[in-house]
């Protein structure tokens, strides 16, 4: 496998780094402290990202996107992962689920997400259904040509108030040989639709400026034309893209690890105690060595998954391994970086404490570490099942 960057990838990353240096990093501390991104700032980042062609770089050129392959997108996600998501989220990578849009849905949802006129939310999780998605209770009952949605979603995160949500709801029960199984369907539901309420969720200590929303549906009537994909295939649709989302979490974790390692190394080389730089003490230097090694291992797992995705051969466990290892390595790197910085590692004056908090979410969203291990273990054991 060739991990050498192409000239195009090098140029793209140079340009993206310069963009983040100018448009994003200077505002991180402020946004984190405020627990929000001022609308004007968000719009400014978005406008600049559109101008630079970074916006929707993940989607195919045929729908107006940047047309990057998965490998290049992995490099982009790695770079964006270094920055605070509340800000970097305004350089949108609309969910690939939207590629399932058909007919009017293309003009109403897919295209505006590519041009930056609309922002989507991906609404799967419920208070009673986190890791166990099948325990969801939000339902959509058919009524003529419409569906009536009732239920509640939480932890739905977007960089700004979403214009519409891709909402997963139960539309029936299938009797299978292994017992009853819920039919889950994805709906496109506009903000402002009667019976659909969006409210800001609680502050999260990890990625404070990247807010979550609570969506409640009370007798919310939507046309059957709002179904994304087909009735009953919502989870297949979601699963098709969920794996890639996990690889992106892995890539973002690598970016963050690189940022931490750089700070930790500089600190270890310059902070002196007992008459020498603390990096001269093995207790510190071995932490750096571990971080660097785990970063390289994580990068390889992520790149491996990306290359396979480009070849169309990535498996769910390729994605799970990349996410699991990189996010856990990031957790260790963040903790070690705080340790290397000592008391300063916990002070708001430096970005270390923020990165340490921000790192924590990566082991939880897009499937917890435990769920990733389940996915990997299941694929190992499946051949032995009768």
């Amino acid at each position, binding site marked *: 496998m060739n991990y050498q960057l192409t*000239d*195009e990838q*090098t*140029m793209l990353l*140079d*340009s993206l780094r310069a*963009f983040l240096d100018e448009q994003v990093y200077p505002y991180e501390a402020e946004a984190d402290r405020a627990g929000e991104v001022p609308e004007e700032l968000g719009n400014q980042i978005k406008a600049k990202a559109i101008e*630079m062609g970074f916006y929707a770089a993940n989607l195919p050129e045929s729908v107006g996107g*940047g047309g990057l392959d998965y490998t290049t997108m992995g490099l982009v996600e790695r770079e964006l992962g270094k920055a605070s998501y509340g800000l970097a989220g305004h350089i949108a990578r609309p969910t690939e689920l939207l590629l399932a849009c058909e007919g009017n849905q293309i003009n109403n949802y897919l295209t505006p997400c590519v041009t930056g006129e609309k922002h989507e939310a991906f609404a799967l999780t419920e208070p009673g259904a986190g890791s166990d998605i099948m325990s969801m209770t939000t339902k959509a009952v058919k009524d003529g040509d419409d569906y009536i949605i009732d239920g509640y979603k939480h932890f739905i995160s977007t960089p700004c108030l979403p214009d519409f949500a891709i909402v997963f709801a139960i539309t029936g029960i299938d009797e299978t040989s292994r017992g009853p199984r819920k039919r889950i369907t994805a709906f496109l539901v506009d903000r402002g639709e009667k019976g659909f309420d969006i409210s800001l969720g609680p502050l999260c200590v990890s990625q404070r400026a990247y807010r979550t929303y609570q969506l409640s549906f009370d007798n919310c009537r939507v046309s059957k034309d709002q179904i994304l994909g087909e009735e009953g295939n919502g989870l297949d649709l979601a699963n098709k893209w969920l794996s890639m989302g996990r690889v992106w979490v892995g890539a973002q974790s690598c970016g963050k690890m690189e940022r931490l390692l750089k700070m930790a190394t500089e600190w270890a080389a310059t902070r002196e105690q007992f008459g020498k730089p603390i990096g001269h003490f093995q207790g510190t230097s071995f932490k750096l060595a571990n971080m660097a090694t785990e970063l390289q291992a994580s990068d390889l797992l992520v790149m491996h998954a990306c290359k396979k995705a480009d070849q169309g051969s990535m498996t769910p466990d390729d994605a799970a391994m990349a996410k699991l290892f990189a996010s856990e390595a990031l957790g260790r790197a963040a903790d070690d970086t705080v340790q290397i910085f000592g008391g300063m590692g916990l002070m708001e004056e430096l970005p270390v404490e923020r990165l340490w908090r921000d790192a924590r979410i990566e082991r939880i969203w897009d499937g917890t570490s435990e769920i990733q291990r389940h996915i990997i273990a299941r694929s190992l054991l499946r051949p032995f099942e009768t």
Partner: protein
Amino acid sequence: MERVLVGLKRVVDYNVRVRIRSDGSGVETDGVKMSINPFDEIALEEALRMKERGEANEVVVVSIGGSECQQQLRTGLAMGADRAILVETAESVNPLTGARIFLELIKREAAELVLLGKQAIDDDNNQTGQMLAALWGRPQATFASRIELNGSTAKVTREVDVGLETIEVDLPAVITTDLRLNEPRYVKLPDIMKAKKKPLDQIPVADLAVESAASITAVTFEPPEQRQKGIIVKDVAELVAALKDKGLV
């Protein structure tokens, strides 16, 4: 004007802390981030603005060096240059040789303006533009912080020791750029894709039949001595005492 030539030199990125190779044979470039010389990037930006204002039809970027220089040329193409020329050589190129090579390209391309950085941040020679103007027998305007084209002449504001000096030169001419001339644009994603399809000619240096002016041989490289830790003195008396102590006054 039909054509502007812009020189793009590949140098160690200005953010990188430069290190000497352990054998003292030169500056470490293995695994080191390389970029377009910042002054050259400014020269290209200026040429692109001339093109956008309709003052120039074509912007051609030129680099002299190994095939790895293609990376910087591609960046130049992505910024908006129309064409690139790589003069291939494995030798290190000193200012006079560089100027001779540019002179050959000027003839081939019938260039009416050559925009170069005032110097490259690696060797800091600040000679190529001046030598080229002399060889070409055309005017030079160095350290430009403002350029205004008026048909067959260019009004150039130069950053000189005593302040700003404005001169007018007849075209064709060589202009070298200073830091404050402009702020180069960032490369946009769609332009990176377009750059792939723009022509990049590779010319072996031998084809240009220029005489190499290599007259200096670098024997060994050494890093400058590490700076000693400073001390903070309370007042002038203590400062004078400390200087006396070191035998400096």
